[in-house]
Every structure is written in structure tokens, then in C-alpha cells.
């Protein structure tokens, strides 16, 4: 099993898609930081001083960590859907899946090694996000004054380690969903379409249902997005706006709901993959 995971990482490392997605991640971070800095360095007329201070805080330590994790969570979800769906779906498209299965003969090894390697990539991606985000924060902090080193305390670091864990956990349901759709449709397109489709349709549904009354407004509490919002560090840009769905959910509720999603997608993928014939 370990050798299969390592072999999987070998493939991901050699694949240009992995690196392209990483470049997208880094570019997105740079654009976001500099665009935000651009806004506050010449704020539009009528922008409240409070709002400006909030945004400033989101670009400096320690507030910048929330920015880093929420940004990494959002863009990371989209990138991991693409990578996860491709990692599974392309095995069908290229026919390499037969090569793998006629070597091992234990189908769940394939599914598990794929997922573990994707989680490792997500972990590394998140780590890189933190590094890039911190470097950018050093730059913006200097532009806005100076780095407040006193704010970096042991408890802050502990808190950020927890945020790191929650962000990684928040990526899981979407990774598992994208891979599930890729298995279902036996293609990368099915996985990307299913994953991104769910992501966007869900966010629209959440805002529509949020306006509805009665039991309809309860539905978002059991969807993925609001529960992800509930466990993630608050996004600096959601403050001052309408309270977004999920902010009222307890961490326990969110953790359980997301865990159920993970288990369902994983079980469905494993079952389907075990049962189905692999023909040309």
C-alpha cells in the first residue's frame, strides 16, 4: 500500500498539471493580496474607515492567517476538484487503469492510494499557501507600516495549526465528491463537471434557500458549503456583509455533517469500483 501511494505521488510529481495548478494557486494569492492592497491604498469614496481598517488587518499579521486559510480553502477546493477528478478519470481515459489492476488485483488499494496521495498533495498545497501568504503578508505589512512581530505568539501558532487542520478537513468532502463522480462517469470530465457543478449549484441553492422560510431554510445546514464555512476561520471579507450561511452552525454539527459526506462518497466509490467490470 505504501509503495502504491509513493508510486502515485511519483506520477503526480511528474505530471505538469500538478505544477500548473500550483502556479495558479500562487498567482491567485499574489493577485488577491496586491488587489486588496490596491483598494486600501486608494480607497473608493464613501468607504468606511472601519472597513478600511478591517481590510488592512487582513493583510497583516496576525489577521492575515484568516485570509490565507480562507483563500486557500476556496481556491484549493476548485483546484483539488480538478486534480482529483483528473487523477482518477484519466486512468480510464488512458487505459492505464488496466495496467494497474492487472498488477495488484486488490481494487480498494487503487482507490485508497489515489485518495491518500491527493490528501498529501492538498496538505503540501496548503503548506505552500501558508508560505506564499506569509511572504506576501511580510511585503504588505511593510507597505502598510511594519511587521508586528509581537503578535506572533505561541498561542497564535497553535491556533493556526488548528486552522490548518480544519482547512485540510474542509477540502476532503469536495475531493471525495470529485473522485466519486470520476469513478461514476469513468472520466475526468465527469469528475470535474460533477465536482464543480455541485460546488456552484450548491452555493446558488444555499443563497436561494437562505431567503426561503420554514423547513426549506434548514436545508443548507445539511449541505457541504455552509458546514465548511462553519469550521473555517472567518473570511475577512464576509464581515460587515450579510451573515453568510453556516456561520451559525456548531463545529460539532459541521464536523459530523462533513464526515457523513466523506463516508458516503468514499463508500460509494469503493463499492462501485469493486463491482464494475473494466472493459476497453
Amino acid at each position: 500500500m505504501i509503495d502504491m501511494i509513493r508510486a502515485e505521488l511519483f506520477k503526480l510529481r511528474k505530471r505538469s498539471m500538478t505544477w500548473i495548478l500550483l502556479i495558479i494557486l500562487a498567482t491567485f494569492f499574489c493577485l488577491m493580496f496586491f488587489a486588496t492592497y490596491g483598494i486600501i491604498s486608494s480607497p473608493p469614496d464613501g468607504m468606511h474607515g472601519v472597513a478600511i481598517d478591517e481590510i488592512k488587518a487582513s493583510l497583516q499579521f496576525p489577521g492575515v492567517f484568516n485570509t490565507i486559510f480562507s483563500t486557500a480553502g476556496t481556491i484549493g477546493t476548485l483546484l483539488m476538484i480538478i486534480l482529483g477528478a483528473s487523477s482518477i478519470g484519466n486512468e480510464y481515459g488512458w487505459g492505464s487503469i488496466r495496467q494497474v489492476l492487472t498488477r495488484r488485483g486488490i481494487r480498494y488499494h487503487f482507490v485508497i492510494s489515489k485518495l491518500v496521495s491527493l490528501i498529501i498533495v492538498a496538505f503540501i498545497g496548503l503548506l505552500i499557501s501558508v508560505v506564499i501568504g506569509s511572504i506576501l503578508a511580510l511585503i504588505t505589512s511593510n507597505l502598510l507600516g511594519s511587521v508586528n512581530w509581537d503578535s506572533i505568539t505561541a498561542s497564535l501558532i497553535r491556533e493556526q495549526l488548528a486552522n490548518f487542520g480544519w482547512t485540510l478537513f474542509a477540502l476532503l468532502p469536495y475531493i471525495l465528491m470529485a473522485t466519486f463522480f470520476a469513478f461514476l462517469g469513468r472520466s475526468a470530465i465527469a469528475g470535474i463537471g460533477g465536482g464543480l457543478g455541485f460546488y456552484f449549484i450548491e452555493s446558488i441553492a444555499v443563497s436561494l434557500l437562505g431567503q426561503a422560510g420554514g423547513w426549506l431554510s434548514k436545508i443548507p445546514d445539511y449541505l457541504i458549503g455552509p458546514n465548511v464555512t462553519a469550521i473555517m476561520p472567518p473570511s475577512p471579507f464576509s464581515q460587515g456583509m450579510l451573515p453568510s450561511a453556516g456561520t451559525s452552525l456548531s463545529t460539532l454539527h459541521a464536523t459530523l455533517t462533513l464526515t457523513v459526506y466523506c463516508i458516503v462518497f468514499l463508500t460509494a466509490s469503493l463499492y462501485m469500483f469493486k463491482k464494475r467490470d473494466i472493459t476497453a
Partner: protein
Amino acid sequence: MDNNADLVVRTEHLTKHFGKLVAVDDLSLEVRKGEIFGFLGPNGAGKSTTVGMMLGLVAPTSGKVEIFGLDTQLHLPQILKRVGAMTESIGFYPYLSGENNLNYIARITGGISSTRIEKVLDLVELSGREKDKFSTYSLGMKQRLAIACSLLSDPEFIVLDEPTNGLDPAGVKEIRELIIKLGHEGKTIFLNSHLLHEVEQICERVAIIQHGKMITQGPVKDLMKKGDLLQLQVTEPEKAMAVLNNLDWIRSIVREDDKLFIDVNAERYAQISAVLAREDIFITEMRAKDNTLEDFFLEITEERTN
């Protein structure tokens, strides 16, 4: 039976349905240790599906496959350790080099050295191009890489599904020689093919299937021998088979729909029609043929294209 110890493959009433389509129909065949076994049939006959079931890619609807005496449904991982396979549509990672594709397979297989990788690349004459990306390979090179890959773990049993597909005549010859060489090394080889002459030149024994059904199996020499083969079309083929099977002067009968192919001396022809008439079975067509396997095979393949 001590005979079974010599069997590498044994399928027992192996059947596969895809919805209504019966791709493999009650197939029972045996491959012995050390032989090159040809599995011959026209397009769509069920060869690849059979190979899929042998390798655990396709689950049989009923019946079973035993390899090395082990049921593939129960002991697949153990079996696959001793098998090298090249499936029909070859699958590699386009962004990896040929060598890295083998590296990857070696990693997930375990116990394969880098010198072994070099050796198999050399064997299929890909040395020199091994660092190039798989996506830049020609069809023939891809095919060679797949053959190399099937040999990676130096397996006892090698399954090749149409290995010469897309190769030029020189390439076909090389691969044919390679297969024969592997046979001499004592490997057991299962070769899928729709090319009679390929099977004829390489294989010791052959099975022919059509529409998923086994038509005949036996040593190539016997099947290819020139002889009197009588082709009969009769009103009740099933009954006719039963009647004729009781006659000890008939060497073999193969049935294909309402046609019977009978291996018998020419002087017995009249006797056959008499025996059948007694049972109220009537002959609608009677033809003497001389080359068994080839005509026979052409016949079934032509029938399909018509």
C-alpha cells in the same frame, strides 16, 4: 487428477453477459504449462472478454477461471504475482517517458530492479528512445512498450492480447520470434489473435471461438493437417451430432450453427447420409473440403463480415 497440476489455465463453463449480449458462452478451455496457446476468433468473438475474466478485470456472470489451480475470484493477488499481461488497448501515462512508465509499474509490482527495466526495453528494441515521452511514441513503439511491460516481472504465465496489432511486417516478425523464444524459455503464453497464420506459426495448441462459444480446440498440427473434412448442412443438427458421435469411424465433429464439419475418410460419405436418413435427418448440403483450419476459420470470419 495429477493432470491438473500441469494446467496453468482452466476455465469452467465460463460465461459473461453484457446485458442481453452473451460475450462469452459456456467456455471451457485448458492451457498447459509451458505451451504457447493460441486463442483465435474473429472480431467481437469474446477473446478480450475472456482475457479480462482471467485477469480479474471482468467478473464472470457464471462459471469460473482457475489459474495455477487457484480461482481468480478468490486468489487474484496471488495469481497476478505470477502473471504478466498485455491487455488489448494499451494504457500508459502519456506524460511519462517509456522508462518512467515501466518505473511506475515496477514500483507498484515490487521486486523489480532497474537493470530488469533496461533489459526488457532492450528486448523489445526500445533502448535509445526510453527517455522520450510515451505520447510521442508511434503505435508500434507503444505496442512494444506494452510487451516489455508484460515481461517486467519475468512471469511464468504471459497473456498477450493481439500483441502485433499495428506493427509493421518486420515488427510482427520480431515479436513472433520473441514469443517463440519465451516459449523455449519455458513460459506459458496465452496469445489472443484474429490472425490464423500468426497462431499457426507460433502456437502449439489453439482454441477457436466465435460468438463467445468454443468451436474447437486442439493441437495446431491436427487442426491444420490436410484431410478430408466433410461439411454438412442438415435439418436437425443437434440430433445429427448425437447420432454421428456414436460412430467410431468418425474422428471428430465440429458444429457451427446448422453446419457440421466432420473429419472422416471420403469412402464413408455415403454411409453418413444413410445413417442420418434412418433417423429422419436430411442433408440439405454436402461439401468436401480439404484444408481444415484455414477454410474453416475463413468461413466463420467471412460469415461475420457478410
